[in-house]
């Protein structure tokens, strides 16, 4: 049979590219605004309205608004990009109505960027050309000197105005295919998305002479590959928060319009699926995924290829594939961002998985708290059915597949696979003993493969660029990247995607910009309520499933919370136990009762009522719950306790022995004092104290009545003379 799959795919692609080309040919100005939950929360909707109003008022028809997903730069949202034909894209941060007005008036209408609003303004002004040199370890590994540095030196020796050219070292674009590794460096030039492969210094000279001085790209050095990160770096490569990342799972988030199938197709969307269907070899797909060493991103880290093989081998005609989008870790939001920013990638990965194991039906299990993600998936499913990419005989092959969405209803335990299956079946989401594993007996008692959102998002990339390319990006046991939700006391919060094996220090300091307000970093919490706290001394640990496990934490789904000296480790353990105690489904005793008792002990300790025996008692209980619980929730619930006990036992002891909270966080163990030397008697504290327990004459030192003080800390916050001390 002649391959009609690729022909059909080519037709779809041609149509999508045609639409894109028409848009580009129109040569208009594009204003890009994110539209994920977090951006909308930060006011993106309002900003969008403002731009629309301005466009209407200006009467221009060549200005378009392009709504994309989220880039994951939470602390600077809403981010607005302005694209003028032939000019460098400019992105603005923290845009509100007024700033939108300035941007429109100055940049869009008059062509003068508003410098003080530019995202990470200190990253340098606006250049005529920007050269992004791949700074990853593989590209150029065998070269003596980095081409980017040589380029910079050469440039300095010419008469080119250095302020017009940007030279940036970024992380891997994903171009390091086998034959070139080591001896070539790749360079992305913008505007224009041109990619050069540089192998000699003469190449650099030619680029300077031709491209920079005469605005003529050097065709000889151009390569036609479209590396996975091209679109992303072209938009965001100038920002250090972004250019040290390697975006595979998030490659399209913030780049394309998540509601447009055409845009997804135009970035090679569904190419992987088409090739898979064209080849028609299920086992080859599974083999490729196995060799990529992709491990499940939902927390467990089970090798995806192996899981698919089990699903494939399980007997039966009816099988299911499920995407786990329950994302319950109370500090993680990467799955949401992926579904809101690039739902098609996840669906494509799921379809490939469905094909590989022999499923005709897939389910999305999504948290009810993610209405926008649900709407975007619904929209994507509708468009795909319309285009013949879901339904019977997809792309003319013998593969038929459809998708359905099921909503969760706010139960963390439903992220656990057996509980999730019950929840889809419409029951109480309680886990059951495994085996039988879902691949043997899952949804409606049929063989079922469950994977995480991020796992699926990686599948199309692996099949497009090859298993060996993918596993090179990670560590020997674990290929590819991991997305982390970086938050807490870090300067730049947001989504960070880095190769497996990157160190915590790279993530927190190089990308995250270090600890906010110049405080000392104390620990990094990974893995959410199932994870642990990793002390600052271990920051150079490469992050992957096994190393974090050895440190007593877990990778988990990718929550990463940075803590500073003001965070009390006992309090953090208590926080997570409050969570797990509340979420325990109650089916098995060790978890149901154990979490409750552990929480009671922790509450006692933080209230200052703990005894020295409480610490070993807590430890014993934690070990027992870990061993005896039925499902992963109970088995991991003690981790926050055990890891803090392991590294910060002295803090527990300070609480129970000295009745002191070293971080001054536990309310019951601190008190407030006014220093008579510093107090000027301004009366502000006295007027703000809710229980009026501060007395003193105007211009005289004030005094706190410790017996009546409720330790609300208001006086500490309002005193402008630093006269109130927390002790």
């Amino acid at each position: 049979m002649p391959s009609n799959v690729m022909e059909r795919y080519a037709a779809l692609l041609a149509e999508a590219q045609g639409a894109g080309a028409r848009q580009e040919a129109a040569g208009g100005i594009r204003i890009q605004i994110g539209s994920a939950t977090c951006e909308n929360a930060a006011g993106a909707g309002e900003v969008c309205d403002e731009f629309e109003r301005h466009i209407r008022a200006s009467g221009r028809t060549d200005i378009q608004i392009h709504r994309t997903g989220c880039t994951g730069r939470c602390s600077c949202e809403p981010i607005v990009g302005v694209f003028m034909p032939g000019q460098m894209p400019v992105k603005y941060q923290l845009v509100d109505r007024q700033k939108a007005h300035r941007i429109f008036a100055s940049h869009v209408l008059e062509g003068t960027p508003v410098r003080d609003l530019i995202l990470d303004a200190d990253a340098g002004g606006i250049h005529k050309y920007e050269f992004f040199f791949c700074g990853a370890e593989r590209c150029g590994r065998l070269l003596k000197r980095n081409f980017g540095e040589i380029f910079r030196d050469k440039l300095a020796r010419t008469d080119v105005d250095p302020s017009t050219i940007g030279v940036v070292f970024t992380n891997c674009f994903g171009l390091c295919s086998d034959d070139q590794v080591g001896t070539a460096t790749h360079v992305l030039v913008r505007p224009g998305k041109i990619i050069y492969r540089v192998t000699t210094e003469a190449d650099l000279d030619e680029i300077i002479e031709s491209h920079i001085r005469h605005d003529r790209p050097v065709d000889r050095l151009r390569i036609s590959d479209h590396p996975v990160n091209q679109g992303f770096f072209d938009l965001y490569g100038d920002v250090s928060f972004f250019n040290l990342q390697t975006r595979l799972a998030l490659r399209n988030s913030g780049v394309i319009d998540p509601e447009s199938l055409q845009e997804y197709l135009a970035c090679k969307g569904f190419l992987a699926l088409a090739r898979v269907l064209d080849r028609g070899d299920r086992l080859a797909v599974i083999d490729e995924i196995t060799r990529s060493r992709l491990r499940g991103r939902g927390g467990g880290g089970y090798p995806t290829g192996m899981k698919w093989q089990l699903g494939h081998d399980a007997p039966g005609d009816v099988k299911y594939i499920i995407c786990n989008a329950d994302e319950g870790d109370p500090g993680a939001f990467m799955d949401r961002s992926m579904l809101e920013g690039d739902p098609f990638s996840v669906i494509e990965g799921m379809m490939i998985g469905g094909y590989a194991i022999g499923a005709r039906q897939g389910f999305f299990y999504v948290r009810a708290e993610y209405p926008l993600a649900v709407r975007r998936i619904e929209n994507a499913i509708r468009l795909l059915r319309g285009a013949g990419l879901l339904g019977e005989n997809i792309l003319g092959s013998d593969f038929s597949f459809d998708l359905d969405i099921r909503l969760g209803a706010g139960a963390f335990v439903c992220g656990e696979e057996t509980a999730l299956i019950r929840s889809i079946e419409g029951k109480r989401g309680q886990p059951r003993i495994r085996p039988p594993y879902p691949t043997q007996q899952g949804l409606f008692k049929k063989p079922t493969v469950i994977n995480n959102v991020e796992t699926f998002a990686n599948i199309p990339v692996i099949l497009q660029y090859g298993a060996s390319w993918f596993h090179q990006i990670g560590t020997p046991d674990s290929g590819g990247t991991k997305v982390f939700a970086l938050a807490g006391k870090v300067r730049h919060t947001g989504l960070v995607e880095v190769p497996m094996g990157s160190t915590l220090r790279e993530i927190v300091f190089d990308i995250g910009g270090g600890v906010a307000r110049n405080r000392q970093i104390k620990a990094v919490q990974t893995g959410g309520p199932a994870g642990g706290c990793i002390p600052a001394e271990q920051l150079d640990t490469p992050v992957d499933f096994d190393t974090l496990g050895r440190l007593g934490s877990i990778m988990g789904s990718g929550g990463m919370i940075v803590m500073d000296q003001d965070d009390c480790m006992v309090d953090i353990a208590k926080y997570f136990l409050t969570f797990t105690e509340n979420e325990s489904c109650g089916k098995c005793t060790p978890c149901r009762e154990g979490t409750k008792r552990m929480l009671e002990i922790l509450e006692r300790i933080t209230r200052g009522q703990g005894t020295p025996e409480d610490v070993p008692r807590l430890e014993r209980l934690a070990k027992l719950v870990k061993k005896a619980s039925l499902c992963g929730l109970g088995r991991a619930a003690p981790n926050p306790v055990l890891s803090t006990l392991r590294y910060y036992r002295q803090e527990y002891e300070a609480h129970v022995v000295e009745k002191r909270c070293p971080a001054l966080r536990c309310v019951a163990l601190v008190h407030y004092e006014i220093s008579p030397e510093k107090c000027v008697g301004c009366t502000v504290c006295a007027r703000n104290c809710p229980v009026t327990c501060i007395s003193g004459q105007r211009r005289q030192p004030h005094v706190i009545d410790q017996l009546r003080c409720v330790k609300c800390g208001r006086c500490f916050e309002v005193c402008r003379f630093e006269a109130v001390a927390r002790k």
Partner: protein
Amino acid sequence: MTAIARTDNRQEVLAAARAELPVDIVAFIEDCRRQEHPESNLIAVLHRVQEHFGYLACEKLDAVAQLMNIPAAKVAGVATFYHYFRMQPRGKLMINVCMGTACYVKGAEKVVDRIREELGIDFGQTTTDGVFSLNSALCLGTCGLAPVVMINDEVHGKVTPDQVPALLEKAMLKARQSMEEA
């Protein structure tokens, strides 16, 4: 034969159940019942009922049980298992304080304390005048703005305890305005 027919009140029960629910939900249930594994849509149905009425009243659960042909005890079991479902009516203004990790680390607890103090209610409760309900949420996905408080659909980021009274005041004014308009 006739005696049996007379004791069978199935049709009346179903009619009564249908009368409890809006037509679109009844239609949705009927649609589900035509599919494979109809009971797997129970949670979806409960979502719709709660969205329509604001909470899941006992009569509504019974009606769902009848129409979906699932034992009422099972329906109640599911409804009470999931945190998202409410069995009590909620206030006009729903305050959701994020108690996710990022917000907690950035001092969400102090904000909650202040709200408790101002309104005199705890999580899961509604003020006696039926205006405010207080709930905790786990990560609203806007950790960059932590600590975050949501009042109905409006997200307020970087909230300090001292902003709480003004925030509540403003929400109240807005609610009153929209009520007067309506």
